[in-house]
């Protein structure tokens, strides 16, 4: 389809310092904490109790609804406690803490999964505990479950990894290329799109080469090298840039015949079907100016970030900010006890110099945020409406379509907290019951 409009993108710095660094396995941590809600939808329900012995890969939390995801023990050991307060947010949220025995004994039920049809495939995806590992965390099985009558033209395997610093998807595509490829073949066989496109930004030549090598000559499979620009991996941006299709307001990607799925998610599915081992560990990029030896690590889910940072030589003294995820959309955390979860693709630590917030000054109405909004919104106008709590205007400006990519706040010369304003504006609309 003809591309009618180029989505503006930002040439954010890449900082892909760890791209050539295959991940190292960290030692078994002293403790892991597994939140029951590491995904979109309903939290999982614990199926173990304090004092129970668990083995690696054992189910400890069952899916709490149709849109939910099971949680598995990432280490073998004893259940230390079941907590009902989230240490990070202070809100009520159940998590299970396991004291590892260091043996990493694998649960006896772990065995290759037999899949012969779509239903079995979707069950396997659900049982693997996989969720959108690009950061969204939406459970993958419901996403792949198509409503009757939906014609699926494209599955876009998202290896854009457009956030600075993060290279965990890059490493997955290089080091576990075979799993990504097997996963793509499984999607082709059981979800049956017309075409599968593996989308990779052109700053990852090794990943592109690997994927091209595997897909050469296979019909219905394509590897597309995309210009490195932020937010190339945003799902609606990706759909537009690959297919020229525009997802309607309030619609789903499947409305335009597309599904976007992260490349690591695809690899986890293939790995689960091949080995039976659910999602219990993942590759995490540990980087940032305050990390002594930045590298990629493989860590059990639930490992406190302290252990990851220690494994990378520890923190420099002037550390002032720690982020889970990328610097554009990641979450700053208050301390080092926070565990990595399924969607944690990076732990970044920054020194004081990079963490100090610049004081916002008046909006000078330069229009940079408008010119560069990939969603075509008007952040400066939205902020005005937000400050005046004008619900009708927020609606008219379509703040609910904001992808929270933070391009606006990145660019703002007056350093206004525009991305925060977008999120809070959505809250206002939600509270006003007028989404």
């Amino acid at each position, binding site marked *: 389809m003809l591309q009618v409009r180029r989505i503006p993108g930002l040439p954010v710095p890449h900082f892909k310092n760890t791209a050539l660094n295959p991940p190292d396995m960290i030692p078994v941590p002293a403790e892991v904490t597994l939140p029951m809600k590491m995904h979109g939808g309903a939290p999982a329900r614990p199926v173990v109790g304090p004092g129970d012995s668990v083995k690696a890969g054992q189910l400890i939390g069952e899916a709490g609804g149709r849109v939910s995801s099971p949680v598995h023990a990432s280490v073998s050991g004893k259940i230390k406690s079941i907590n009902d307060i989230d240490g990070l947010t202070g809100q009520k949220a159940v998590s299970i803490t396991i004291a590892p025995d260091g043996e990493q004994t694998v649960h006896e039920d772990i065995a290759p999964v037999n899949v012969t049809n779509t239903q079995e495939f979707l069950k396997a995806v659900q049982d693997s505990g996989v969720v959108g590992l690009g950061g969204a965390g939406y459970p993958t099985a419901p996403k792949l479950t198509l409503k009757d009558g939906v014609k699926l033209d494209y599955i876009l395997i998202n290896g854009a990894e457009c956030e600075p610093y993060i290279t965990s998807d890059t490493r997955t595509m290089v080091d576990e290329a075979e799993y990504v490829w097997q996963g793509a073949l499984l999607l082709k066989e059981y979800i049956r799109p017309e075409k599968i496109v593996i989308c990779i930004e052109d700053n990852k030549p090794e990943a592109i080469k690997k994927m091209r090598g595997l897909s050469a000559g296979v019909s219905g499979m394509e590897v597309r090298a995309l210009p490195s620009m932020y937010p190339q991996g945003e799902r609606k941006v990706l759909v537009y840039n690959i297919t020229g299709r525009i997802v309607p307001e309030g619609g789903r990607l499947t409305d335009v015949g597309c599904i976007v799925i992260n490349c690591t998610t695809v690899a986890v599915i293939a790995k689960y079907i091949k080995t039976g081992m659910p999602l219990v560990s993942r590759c995490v990029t540990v980087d940032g100016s305050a990390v002594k030896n930045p590298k990629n690590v493989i860590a059990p889910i639930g490992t406190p970030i302290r252990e990851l940072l220690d494994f990378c030589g520890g923190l420099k003294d002037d550390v002032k900010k720690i982020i889970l995820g990328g610097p554009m959309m990641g979450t700053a955390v208050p301390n080092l006890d926070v565990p990595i979860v399924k969607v944690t693709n990076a732990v970044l630590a920054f020194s004081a110099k990079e963490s100090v917030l610049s004081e916002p000054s008046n909006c000078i*109405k330069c229009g940079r945020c*408008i010119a560069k909004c990939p969603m075509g919104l008007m952040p400066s106008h939205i902020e005005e409406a937000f400050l005046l709590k004008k619900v009708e205007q927020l609606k008219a400006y379509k703040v609910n379509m904001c992808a929270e990519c933070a391009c606006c706040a990145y660019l703002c010369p007056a350093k206004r907290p525009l991305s925060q304003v977008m999120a809070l504006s959505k809250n206002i609309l939600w509270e006003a019951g007028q989404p």
Partner: protein
Amino acid sequence: MNNMIVSYAPHIKDKITTNRIMLDVIIALIPAFIASVWIFGPRAAVVTGVCVITCVFCEWAFQKAMKRTVTVKDLSACITGILLAFNLPVGIPLWQAVFGSAVAIVFVKQLFGGIGKNFANPAITARIVMFIAFPITMTTWVQIPDSVTAATPLALMKRGELEALPEMLNMFIGTRGGCLGETSALALLTGGVYLLIRRVITWHTPVAFIATVFLLTAIAGAQPMYHLFAGGLFIGAIFMATDYPTTPQTSKGRIIFGIGCGVFTVLIRLFGSYPEGVSFAILLMNMVVPHINRLTMTKALGGAKS
């Protein structure tokens, strides 16, 4: 290790700051400043200096008096001073320049809330106030060496004295009668190119503004080339009609704004009682900016009609 900064994403930001943008505008005005001193002599520098110092002082004093954060460091008051000076005749009594600068900063800018909050361009509005308050000194032009007359080309055209018009080359490099910073199209264009390269301004408003003036005066058969380089068209189109707070924020809006400025400029120049209309045109268009913004809302990607 437990006192980390927790703030909302993004955690990295572009190097661009308001301060840097203002500095770029000042840098872009340097060629025109040099030209003004070269054409009109050292008094051009004195007038510019007086305006800048008064503007910065007024901003500082007003914010101190109102117990607001002092923002003179953002350099915007400095730009207002330079632009106002560039829109004055070189022979302007200095006390009038001081008065104009105070009007620009206190009445037009600070009373509306300071940087970013004013709806009208401070330098332009102050110039218009001075134009009406001091009609004699604001239209007393100094004759520059090698020139037949002190009158501005626009005044000559208004009076039909076309034979007295300067050579086109003089019009372009600026050796002609006029306000001290507006005459050298060459210097102003150089600054404009710098601003485009630095991405401080976009091409939309200046191109739309200048093209409209050229086309309309051509259609009217009224010396389009002279209308291009005469008066304050270049300084207006490049530096005043691109002032962020008082102009639209979208590309489409900026084109509409530029065309509107061009239409009013030509109407005033050809039919008005004043020879020059750039200031009035920009001020008029400043007032409709909120409406232009509303008419030129961007279309959200996949957004439904509302």
